[in-house]
Structures are given as structure tokens and as C-alpha cells.
């Protein structure tokens, strides 16, 4: 229990640091949201002071001391208020994020999980049956990983989407038949159909790394005495492989998975651009292109919190799967 509390405490401090940095960094940038907004909507006559004042209130620009603003910012955050997006004015940032986030979470989350499960599984087999055909898969998957991702994605999009017509070319769902996301089987089917090709590219480009890492860990773990001992005990090869060799070899991959999991939220920006996918990465690129600071700020905050959350989760999971990391907790 102390172990969990200590971890939680550490992550609470890290989250506070992230939130605070997120408050100060945009304020160090020249200009304020109102100027940015005005420069977008009108370039001719200066706006009337009342209009400017109204915008200042909406964007939360004030001349209060920084600490007052800071506490106001914290209060707004607690209410889920990230301010207004400039590009999508007057839609609040939280709404923009809420619309984009599920797409990314599902697409990248699912494809990352498939990548890791497939990579680790094949890697374990390749290490176990070193020198067989499955071990021979490694060079070909590494070849896929060596192709720059956007290029691989474009080629697959061209071949499977454009030439063969098996998959749609862009968007997260069929925009001709649905006006927006809805809770129906047909919509779900359409979303899965649109997500398959992007997911395929993510899996193809990522699986090699996991496979190679797991395969090599497997080979070195198999030389450990406890694996030989398990074999000497007469255990079935399946049990020796899973409970003794793979169980220990997978530990570094779990840590790696943690790190990747945090970046699920930031999205595969390249994927979302190539496939014109309505996820958070796409929203971030748009925000950057149009200097939409409130939106960027909101997305960055979500990303930092997601990375922290994923790391916390894996820290806790690691405590479960590797008893050695629990040592302090017992003492």
C-alpha cells in the first residue's frame, strides 16, 4: 500500500508541474489570444474598444497579477474549462479535444495493442525456435520498419485504397452517409472500415521493433539457469517457454509499452495527416498552423497528463509482474 501511495504522490507532483508549466509557457510568448484572433478576423480598421474588451473576457486575458491569473487558471481547469479555440471560434477547446480524442484513442490504442501483442508474441516464438522460419521473419519485418512511416502509409494508401479500392481514402467514417458520429451499428462498421488501413500501417511499421526486442531478450533469458532447470524438471515445453522464459523476457517490453501508451494520446500525427483522420494529432497540426495557442495548450496538457497516467499505470502493473520492484514496499 505504501508503494502505491508513494507512486501516487510522485505522480501528483509531476502532474502539478506539468499544469504549471502549461500555464506559464504560453504567457511567455509575445502577444495574446485577442490580438491573434483580431489579426485573423480583420486586418483593416482597429476594433471598437468594447469589442476588444468582450473578447478579452472570453479569452480570459486580464491585467491581474500573475498569481491571481494562475489560481483562476487552476479553477478553470478544475471545471474542465480550457478556454476558446481561435480557429474554431467560439467553440471551447474542451469540445474540440473531446471530439478529436476518441478517434485517436481508439485508432492508436487498438493498433498499438495489436502491434505489441503481435510483436512480443512472434518475438517470443522466434527466440524460442531460434533459427527456424519464424526467426527468419525478422529481417522482412525490419525491412518494413526501415521504410519511413509516411512513405509506407502513402504506398499502402495508393495500392490498397486507390488502385485496388479495398479501403477508403480518408476520414474516420463515411462522411457522405453520416452527418456526424452516431450510436448505430452502421456507423460503427463504417468507422472500423475507415480505421483498418491506418491501423494496418501502424502495425506494419511498428511490429518489427517489438519483435526484435522480445526475440533477443528471449534468447538471453533462455540461457538463464532457471530456464534450464525448468526443462530439467520435466515441465512441458509450453510451460517452460511461457512461465519461465517469456515471462521474464517480456519485462522490458512492458516498460516500453508504457512509454508508447502515453503517446497514444498525442496520436500518430503522420497517420492522421496521411489518412486525413479526425484525431487529436490532426487537431494539433491545425492548431500549430494557425497559431491557435489555447487549443495547443489544451492538447499539450492532455498529452502530458496522458503520459503521466500511462506511466503510473505501468508502474503499478510492473509492481505486479516483477516482484523485485516491490522489494521496498515489503521492507
Amino acid at each position: 500500500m505504501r508503494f502505491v501511495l508513494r507512486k501516487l504522490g510522485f505522480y501528483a507532483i509531476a502532474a502539478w508541474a506539468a499544469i504549471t508549466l502549461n500555464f506559464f509557457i504560453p504567457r511567455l510568448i509575445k502577444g495574446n489570444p485577442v490580438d491573434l484572433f483580431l489579426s485573423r478576423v480583420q486586418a483593416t480598421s482597429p476594433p471598437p474598444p468594447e469589442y476588444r474588451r468582450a473578447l478579452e473576457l472570453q479569452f480570459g486575458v486580464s491585467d491581474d497579477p500573475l498569481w491571481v491569473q494562475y489560481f483562476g487558471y487552476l479553477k478553470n481547469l478544475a471545471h474542465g474549462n480550457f478556454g476558446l479555440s481561435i480557429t474554431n471560434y467560439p467553440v471551447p477547446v474542451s469540445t474540440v479535444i473531446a471530439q478529436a480524442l476518441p478517434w485517436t484513442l481508439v485508432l492508436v490504442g487498438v493498433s498499438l495493442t495489436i502491434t505489441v501483442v503481435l510483436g512480443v508474441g512472434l518475438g517470443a516464438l522466434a527466440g524460442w525456435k531460434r533459427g527456424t522460419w519464424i526467426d527468419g521473419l525478422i529481417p522482412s519485418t525490419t525491412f518494413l520498419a526501415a521504410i519511413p512511416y509516411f512513405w509506407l502509409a502513402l504506398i499502402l494508401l495508393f495500392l490498397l485504397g486507390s488502385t485496388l479500392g479495398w479501403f477508403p481514402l480518408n476520414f474516420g467514417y463515411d462522411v457522405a452517409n453520416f452527418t456526424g458520429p452516431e450510436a448505430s451499428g452502421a456507423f460503427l462498421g463504417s468507422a472500423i472500415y475507415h480505421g483498418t488501413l491506418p491501423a494496418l500501417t501502424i502495425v506494419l511499421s511498428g511490429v518489427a521493433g517489438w519483435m526484435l526486442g522480445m526475440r533477443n531478450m528471449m534468447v538471453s533469458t533462455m540461457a538463464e539457469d532457471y530456464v534450464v532447470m525448468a526443462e530439467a524438471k520435466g515441465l512441458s515445453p509450453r510451460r517452460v517457454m511461457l512461465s519461465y522464459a517469456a515471462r521474464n523476457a517480456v519485462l522490458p517490453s512492458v516498460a516500453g509499452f508504457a512509454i508508447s501508451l502515453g503517446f497514444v494520446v498525442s496520436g500518430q500525427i503522420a497517420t492522421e495527416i496521411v489518412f486525413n483522420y479526425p484525431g487529436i494529432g490532426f487537431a494539433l497540426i491545425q492548431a500549430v498552423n494557425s497559431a491557435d495557442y489555447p487549443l495547443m495548450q489544451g492538447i499539450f496538457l492532455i498529452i502530458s497528463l496522458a503520459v503521466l497516467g500511462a506511466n503510473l499505470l505501468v508502474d503499478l502493473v510492473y509492481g505486479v509482474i516483477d516482484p523485485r520492484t516491490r522489494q521496498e514496499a515489503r521492507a
Partner: protein
Amino acid sequence: MSDVVLSVQDLTVDYGLHDPVRAVRQVSFDLARGEVLGIAGESGCGKSTLAYAVTRLLRPPARLTGGSITFTRPGEDPVDVLSLEGDALRAFRWRRIAMVFQSAMNSLNPVMTVRKQLADVFATHEPDLGRKAVEARCEELLDLVGIDRARLSAYPHELSGGMRQRVTIAMALALRPDVIVMDEPTTALDVVVQRDILDEIDRLRELFGFAVVFITHDLSLLLEISDRLAVMYAGRFVETGTSRQILDNPQHPYTQGLLRSFPSLRGDREALRGIPGTPPDLARLTGGCPFAPRCPHAFEPCTHEPELLDGVACHLFSSKAVAA
């Protein structure tokens, strides 16, 4: 001999297919029921390879290229160990020949509790045993080696080195095997713990009557615990005999050299002499006696490798035998 439990004849192990390195060369021994056979030798002489060959644990690039291993229980048909495969081999393992490994530190799975690792043996070999029965057997095993039953729930990293080695010994006893092969079981432990473990092994052996193949580089230790001894050099046995014979009357110059390299507690103070030179590269054996380059008595016949005759493989004695 009717009470031989394990008979090894002309066992040969190679590493690699092309230009193989012969790590174990025509090793033969008979292990009697309940006896302790000590095998001594320097690092790289092939003693661990021999242990792995006897337990059928060799992995590529190591290959068994010759010889036979026969396991016999009284009243049962002899088992040709080298012909066992698949399920038959797995069922034979641990039940008949168990093993204790070189490093106590690494022979337990770090992510499994002691309980699960002990219970694994029963789940595999006695699947009909109920959960409670398995638990009782596990507790009994820890009792045997003098470890608190509560430690069943411990992970290996929570145990000291000596305790871990006791656990592995308990594990080896799980199915009451006829033979336990011990590959340097005490090397990683300090001398006090080493003494405890040896006493423990001795006590348990009296209790259960298993035979032991005890492999170590520590000849002084072997002289004390084993009934019979084999000295290994460059993949071969160069001298065999009872511990008494070897201590009192070592014949092979290598054995004499080993005996001179540790001090005796009693008796006169003597200058210790090591053996000059280093063990030969097994990939570059010349066909002569492999010890000849380091041997103070080397003479002309040593360009041919001597056979093991009457417990010693040395021309000094075979020529005497011929002369007599």
C-alpha cells in the same frame, strides 16, 4: 554389479558441426545406488558439459556424438537414457535424475514464488495430486531442508544465497529421485554456508538413499564428501579411484599437482606448488597426452594419448604395467 543405478559408457560430446570441439571424450563411469561420485577438474575441462549430457540438457551447438547412458532401478528394465524423447524423456526427468545447478542465485525463476516453483514439479509429474496435497508436500520439502514453511510465499530475491540453494535442493528431492547431479552446488556460497549445505546433502542422502554425482573444481571438498572420485582433464577422466586411494596415493601427475595446490590442516608445513601452464585448448589437441606440456614427468611415449587403465591414464604406469 547389480546395484549400479547409472552406467555411462564412452560418452562423447562435441561442440559445433564443422571442426567440432570435443569437450567430453569417452567418459565412462558406473554410479552405484546411494554412492557419491565426485568429479573434479579445472574450468573448461568439460565437467559441466558432462553433467548436462547425463541429464540430457545439452543444447546446440553441443551434441552427443557417442556412448551410452543406462539407468537401472532394481526389479525394472534398464532405461536407455539417450533414446528417450518427448513425453517419455520429460516423465523420466526429475523423477529419476534431478539436478542442482551451479549458481544458486540464478536457478530459481525470479518472478515466481517458491511455492509455485515447487508445485510446478507436482503439477507436471503427479497431476492427480489435489491442491491441499501439493501444499502439504511443498511444506514437507521445506521442512526437510530446514526452511520455515512461511517462506513458500517468498520470491527468490527475498531469500539469501544459502536459502536459495536449500530450496533448489528441496526441489531436487521433490520426487525422491534415484540420482541427483550437482554441478558446483556450493561454489557461489561462502565457506560457512557451504559447510551447512554439504552437511545437509549428506543427511538427506542417508535419509533417502539417492546417489550423487558431485561436480566441482574443489578437489579438497570432494575428497571429504565422495566415496569415489574421478579427476577430469581436457574432457577425459585421467584418474579414478576411491577418495582414500586418491588422497593417499595419487598416481597421475595432474592429480598429484592438484593435491599439492591446497594446504593440509594437519601434517608438516609444506611449500604449496601450483601446476605450471594452462589447460589445453580443446580445439587444438595434438593427439598426444593433453597434460604432457605441463607435466614434470613427460617423456617420449607422451606423444600418444594414454588409455585409462586400472584407474589412471598415464604412460608412467602403463609402461610399468607393460614392463612388469
